[in-house]
């Protein structure tokens, strides 16, 4: 008797499930709303909160204000949320934003694992996602999709620039300390390729969990490898702690520490004494030219800190998005995306940028070196320019891209 009940119930629900597809949906993605909503999703309180965090929200708002607060007659709203570096939280929030709140574009998302998850949601919901914070090159290769743009930087750009520079300076044997997730692996891969291409040797790597509490045993392994260079394939709080622990163990005396993704917020936290001489390959430095100085000081006035390239990237991405919406005459994702891949990008941050078919925004990249305490003349005067890498060399060439969108 009970078994028949079960069967009846199951069939009933299956029928319902089938029927449910025909009812008008209240929460369908793809609505065009009356407000243009820009959402900043990043790590607000954890190891990446200094290089992105609340600063990115300020940057986005600055761009909105500069644009005039309205586009196509509709008001612009800036939202934000904390993804706590967890892919499930990030993807949940992204889905809710796209579905329920009618968000038109999501920005930032440092932490490549989260960025990969959100880009899949963006693809599913046909909404735009502009990654300013994350670094993994997978976003424009295996995991590329028509709705995701990889702005600002990626691990190829920073890893190759730094790897080349260090090897040319004599650091030809490398051992890596790698954050064990998408970003760390990506940075390790890209940098090792560059090191080998420049004639160096990669002796090995040791993995550590994201936001590790103790780097002593990891660095001990790096030390015992005997490599001339210890490549730090991690970022933010992890990189800062690696450097601090290395100092404690006297490692920095015999071996060179190479930060492969360095932000000005890291230098500020560690101080010039600990970081002088380190290479920083970056897309933006506030003191590079007049326009960047203007942006930098405006940002500093609001946040008391100078912007990192992530902050600058969010600012530029917001401006570019708004310009594209204006040019397209609508906030429909496909039309705006088309415009985004057509228009040149020129603002205080990027002088000559372009978004390629695989979603990669290419622009000139810069190799800086951290000044010594004596060379620094005023607050935040941390970098000196070593070289400028033109856009076509800085990023992975389109011909080598593994993105399925590229027709070969």
């Amino acid at each position, binding site marked *: 008797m009970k078994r028949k009940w079960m069967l009846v119930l199951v069939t009933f629900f299956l029928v319902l499930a089938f029927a449910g597809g025909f009812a008008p949906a209240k929460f369908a993605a793809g609505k065009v709303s009356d407000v243009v909503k820009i959402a900043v999703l990043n790590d607000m309180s954890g190891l990446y909160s200094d290089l992105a965090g609340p600063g990115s929200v300020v940057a986005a708002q600055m761009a909105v204000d500069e644009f005039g607060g309205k586009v196509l007659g509709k008001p612009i709203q800036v939202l934000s949320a904390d993804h706590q570096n967890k892919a499930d939280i990030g993807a949940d929030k992204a889905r809710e934003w796209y579905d329920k709140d009618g968000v038109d574009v999501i920005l930032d998302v440092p932490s490549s694992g989260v960025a990969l998850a959100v880009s899949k949601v963006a693809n599913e919901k046909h909404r735009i996602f502009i990654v300013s914070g994350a670094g993994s090159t997978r976003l424009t290769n295996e995991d590329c999709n028509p709705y995701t743009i990889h702005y600002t930087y990626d691990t190829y750009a920073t890893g190759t620039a730094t790897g080349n520079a260090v090897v040319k300076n004599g650091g030809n044997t490398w051992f890596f300390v790698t954050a064990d997730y998408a970003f760390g692996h990506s940075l390790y891969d890209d940098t090792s390729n560059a090191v080998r291409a420049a004639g160096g040797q990669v002796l090995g790597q040791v993995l550590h969990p994201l936001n590790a509490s103790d780097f002593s*045993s990891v660095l001990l392994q790096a030390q015992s490898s005997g490599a001339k260079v210890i490549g730090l394939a991690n970022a933010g*709080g992890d990189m800062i702690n690696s450097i601090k622990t290395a100092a404690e163990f006297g490692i920095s005396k015999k071996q060179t520490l190479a930060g492969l993704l360095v932000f000005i917020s890291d230098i500020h936290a560690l101080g010039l004494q600990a970081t002088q001489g380190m290479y920083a390959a970056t897309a933006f430095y506030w003191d590079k030219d007049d326009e960047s100085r203007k942006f930098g000081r405006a940002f500093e006035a609001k946040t008391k800190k100078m912007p990192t390239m992530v902050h600058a990237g969010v600012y530029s991405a917001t401006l570019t998005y708004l310009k594209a919406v204006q040019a397209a005459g609508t906030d429909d994702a496909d039309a705006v995306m088309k415009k985004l891949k057509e228009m040149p990008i020129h603002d205080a941050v990027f002088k000559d940028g372009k978004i390629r078919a695989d979603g990669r925004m290419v622009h000139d990249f810069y190799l800086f070196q951290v000044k010594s305490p004596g060379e620094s003349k005023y607050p935040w005067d941390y970098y000196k320019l070593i070289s400028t890498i033109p856009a076509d060399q800085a990023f992975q060439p389109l011909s080598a891209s593994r993105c399925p969108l590229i027709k070969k």
Partner: protein
Amino acid sequence: MREIVNIPTAALFGQLVLGLVNGCFYAMLSLGLSIIFGMLNIINFAHGAMYMMGAVFTWIALDQFGLGYWWALLLVPLVVGLVGIIIERTLLRPLYKLDNLYGLLLTFGLALVIEGLFRYRYGVSGLPYSIPESFQGALNLGFMYLPKYRGWVVVASLLVCISTWLVIERTPLGAYLRAGTENPALVQAFGINVPAMVTITYGVGVGLAGLAGVLAAPATQISPLMGSNVIIVVFAVVVIGGMSSILGSIVTGLGLGLIEGMTKVFYSQASNTVVFFIMAVVLILRPAGLFGKER
């Protein structure tokens, strides 16, 4: 470079020392946990949070009050112990007449609250605390470099562990405590204030955790998450050693730290799992733990 079994000596001993240092923290924390469990029959899930408080208070002592390391070493365990006494009096006391699983749940909630508050206030990036000057630098022992501070940690924790063991096993106060654990009603009949003993025991237990926190402050990342990172391993240590055995906690804590260190040298991926694996094996073969008595 000299090598043992294909691994450079310096690296091997370096990892072993790091393992020993970790083991010292495990020992001190599981010591406190054991004492609390023995006396109150409660698994103090908030132990990790107390450890974290010890480290954060050390930072606050310097940052807000200008009190250096040595002051912290003296005062912070007292402060943490005081917090513990307040908690025991207000929150734990009503639970003694209930199943001890409620105590576990309450202290779990407490751990969430404490960690959440500190996390809210200080973020998770970590607070900086430099090694006190007397301990900066490293000693060259020939076969390896020993950072001075880590050496101090080993010495200090061994002192603490041994003195605690001596007090409990060899002094009258310790005798009262042990008797109170076995038969509180009888001990109370002798005129000894058992509830006060219970309160003080909890205070001492978490004070030990706070002390571990002070010792940890210069060596590791002071972060609101440091408690939950370590608490599960400490539980495993306590279970392996025998839930209320003081000696078991100390020996197992040090031993597991060393085993973890060794594992990192030869097969570093397994270093996280080895403790739990050992725990599963011990619990199947010897359910009361290595040094414990079945309750």
